[in-house]
């Protein structure tokens, strides 16, 4: 069968992309509303229950703000950790790569919640007394979450570096570039571009993992809602179906956050996409 391939000009390609994102967004919105309607009917609750929201709204909003704050710490830090380790691990120096591979295997092999629980308890004790405070455990737990994600991201960046063909480095050297320059101008730009799509996934994981901080008393969205749920469950006169409202709302916020971040990174990926420069898949 003959297929015709339209070669888009620069501007028309851009318009197509914009409308694609818009369509995806609209589709997601419609789908989400449909899913919520179905859930409401099956489990018999009303997401817009005014009586509930009067009680719940403050902890809901506080939770979102706190979640974003934690994200603000964890996300950038995890990228820095992941990139540094990923880069260091492609080094041929085992002195550098072996200890780091132990670090990575540890954080990849242990469920993050355990690291969070114990970091919040064990961590503060290692600090001098004047740093001790209520929140320090949670902050240390947040830092270990960043290390956890950093371990995963390091594998992404390492794969990115490794999938740049060796010939690229050789060609750069044959132009008289130093190793550093070859890295900076030839290997790095390609490695970073190859890392963006898997990073989008990992960022979504980080957003979801902030919920783990609830277990050590970091009352971000999940934690504050959990506390609120316990109150509803155990106070008489309240409707039990409210807890579905709470969890649907919480799920919705996380869904929107992960969707936004992945779409953002995908948009960046498309913006900097170079034809012929893809992580090779068969």
């Amino acid at each position, binding site marked *: 069968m003959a297929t015709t391939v339209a070669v888009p000009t620069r501007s028309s390609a851009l318009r197509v992309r914009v409308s694609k994102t818009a369509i995806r967004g609209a589709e997601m919105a419609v789908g989400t509303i449909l899913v919520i309607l179905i859930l409401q009917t099956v489990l018999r609750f009303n997401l817009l229950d005014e009586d509930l929201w009067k009680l719940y709204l403050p902890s809901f909003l506080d939770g979102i703000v706190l979640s974003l704050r934690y994200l603000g710490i964890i996300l950038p830090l995890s990228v820095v950790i992941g990139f540094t380790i990923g880069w260091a691990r492609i080094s041929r120096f085992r002195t550098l790569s072996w200890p780091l591979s132990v670090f990575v295997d540890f954080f990849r092999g242990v469920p993050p919640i355990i690291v969070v629980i114990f970091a919040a308890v064990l961590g503060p004790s290692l600090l001098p007394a004047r740093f001790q405070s209520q929140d320090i455990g949670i902050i240390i737990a947040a830092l270990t979450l960043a290390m956890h994600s950093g371990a995963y991201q390091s594998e992404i960046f390492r794969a990115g570096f490794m999938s740049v063909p060796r*010939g690229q480095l050789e*060609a750069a050297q044959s*132009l*008289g570039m*130093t190793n550093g320059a070859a890295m900076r101008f030839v290997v790095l730009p390609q490695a970073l571009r190859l890392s963006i799509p898997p990073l989008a996934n990992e960022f979504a994981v980080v957003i979801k993992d902030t919920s783990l901080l609830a277990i050590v008393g970091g009352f971000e969205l999940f934690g504050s809602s959990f506390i609120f749920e316990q109150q509803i469950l155990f106070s008489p006169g309240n409707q039990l179906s409210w807890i579905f409202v709470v969890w649907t709302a919480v799920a919705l916020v996380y869904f929107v956050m992960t969707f936004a971040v992945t779409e953002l990174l995908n948009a960046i990926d498309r913006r900097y996409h170079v*034809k012929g*420069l893809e992580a090779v898949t068969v």
Partner: protein
Amino acid sequence: MIRVEELEKHFGALHVLKGVSLEVQKGEVLVIIGPSGSGKSTLLRCINLLIEPDSGRVFLDGTQVNRRDIRPEWVRQQVGMVFQSFNLFAHLTALQNVTLGPIRVLGTDPTTAGAQGRKLLARVGLADKADAYPAQLSGGQQQRVAIARALAMNPKAMLFDEPTSALDPEYIREVLDAMAALARDGMTMIVVTHEMGFASEVAKRILFMDAGRIIEEGSPEEIFHSPKQERTRMFVGKILR
């Protein structure tokens, strides 16, 4: 121009170069032929110090360059190289590929480098492909961009490592033409290739290498039609058939 004396190179247990010596005059084109694994690629990479030889000396314009006090980067600026698999920078357009070296290594300002780059692309017949990415070019076009990229550093000599082996047959001609034009302009070149037509036309001398040694040296006429060594005869017989 380029002189190599008694080069030795091991990769682990593998003895790749067993005392290779050669000399190329300014403006001369030297073609090296030989079976795969005979050390041709390693020899080229030793000349621009992409690989450090275990022992032996490499001279550029009479100066020994494989010395501690000479940076290999400097040597590689003087000697351009074209690879079998093109190795164009996949994230850069053709023009950016050509100007990256001048801008980042020589410190040429981007406008000048851009103008030079366009001239070089025109010289290899690709003026209209300046903004194309490597993946959008045919193999032959990519290899010609690679030649322009090497030329952009204004090298004293050029090394070609089987520049047409990875090409579809219909693209070989255009690359060889670009190389022949370069030779006519007086570029000093060392070419590893099995293109006999090109070798007879452009080269004055041909070296036959096998198992890390230079087995025979002579004019294209001698090597192709009356080789003295048995091994040369067998190899030439195979590739001419």
